[in-house]
């Protein structure tokens, strides 16, 4: 099983501007300190050996879209702006013989989680089959509405692919092309749903974004501990600091890095991917949050180590 992140930003797409790129280049040149770098390979070796991730790269700014590569069909969580690039990649893979079946699993229908669909090129492929799984009964309404004339020039009915909507019931597993998938209701405006995916070998990925864990109903978290239980990877909403999530941003529907770590510890999960990054954070902010998360995991660990990863656009995790 391979998990590929196409969009990891929360709420709104963002992009690094010229001054941010210029600062990265200037800082890299200062770090090089006059050493001779005369080839691309030498430059890459210097980057890998001397620069941290925020200095040499970027976490990216596309909104939620995560691919789970397993079996013959495509599996995709959410249709954020990262879906556009996934669609182009999928078209190339289909040209090389990949099956043209796309299984989507929607956490919810807010703007940042569906905005990629009008730009999803395979939706115009008459040979493609798109199956949209959602526990929201109004999923089709949301997708049709964003392609009405007031919002977008191409109406939903012009799409050429076969598009089917499948309603899921939380807690009732379904089998989809070799994966067992279970939905779990989460705290978020208009509700959201997490998904637990398990393949035939028992490898498990949990996708849990846009999920708030409030201080006044911590007893309810027992359900999430079971939902995360022994997962190989948990992709978790870690948009805010805990302090923000219980003060100014309470009831905004998001969680924190340290609540995610605690839930994963209690569930015996093996890896956590910090996800749904705050759009006002720059690369240094996200990297700092990642380093602090690793430190918190070590400070509070009572059992096995939880590997804390930080998702970025383009990250691939092989399980």
């Amino acid at each position, binding site marked *: 099983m391979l998990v590929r992140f196409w969009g990891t930003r929360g709420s709104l797409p963002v992009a690094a501007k010229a001054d941010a790129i210029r600062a990265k280049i200037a800082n890299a040149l200062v770090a090089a300190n006059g050493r001779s770098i005369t080839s691309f390979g030498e430059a890459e070796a210097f980057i890998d050996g001397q620069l941290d991730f925020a200095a040499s790269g970027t976490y990216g700014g596309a909104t939620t879209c995560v691919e789970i590569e397993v079996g013959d069909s495509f599996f995709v969580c959410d249709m954020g702006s990262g879906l556009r690039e996934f669609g182009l990649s999928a078209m190339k893979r289909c040209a090389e013989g990949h099956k043209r079946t796309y299984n989507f699993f929607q956490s919810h229908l807010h703007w940042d989680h569906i905005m990629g669909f009008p730009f999803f090129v395979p939706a115009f492929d008459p040979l493609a089959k798109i199956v949209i799984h959602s526990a929201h009964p109004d999923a089709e309404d949301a997708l049709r509405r964003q392609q009405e004339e007031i919002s977008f020039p191409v109406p939903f009915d012009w799409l050429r692919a076969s598009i089917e909507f499948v309603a899921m019931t939380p807690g009732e597993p379904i089998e989809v092309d070799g994966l067992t998938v279970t939905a779990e209701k989460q705290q978020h405006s208009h509700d959201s749903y997490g998904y637990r995916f398990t393949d035939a070998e028992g490898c498990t990925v949990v996708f849990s974004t846009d999920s708030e864990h409030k201080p006044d109903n911590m007893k309810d978290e027992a359900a999430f501990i079971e939902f995360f239980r022994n997962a190989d990877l948990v992709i978790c909403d870690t948009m805010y600091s805990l302090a923000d999530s219980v003060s100014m941003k309470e009831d905004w529907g998001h969680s*924190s890095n340290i609540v995610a770590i605690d839930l994963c510890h209690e569930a015996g999960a093996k890896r956590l991917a910090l996800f749904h990054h705050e759009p006002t954070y720059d690369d240094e902010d996200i990297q700092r949050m990642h380093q602090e998360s690793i430190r918190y995991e070590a*400070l*509070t660990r009572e059992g096995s180590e939880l590997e804390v990863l930080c998702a970025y656009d383009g990250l691939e995790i092989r399980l």
Partner: protein
Amino acid sequence: MDVSCRSANGILVAAIHGRVDESTWEGFADRMREAIEQAAATKQSELILDLSALDYMSSRGLRVLTMAKRQAEAAGLALTLAAPNEVMREILAISRYDKLFHISDSVDTGE
């Protein structure tokens, strides 16, 4: 995890011992609720949580502190965190709770 309380100069000091995590947070929440009720009933002006004997607190305990702060404010009580160890200082910084709570280096009741 255990909480012991004493009064001094109109201040209730609640000393937390051990650790507050997934196995102890509910007991901690009960003790905090009782301490605030006691402080309000005896007309104390402030509740100081003495953290010097606290090993550490996970997000469970921190969120109990949020609920305690709300209850204390509703009762007109100031709430101070005092004397955290180095681990707890790091956790308060990582969670940004050092921005939400008044934190003092020592337990100061004016005695």
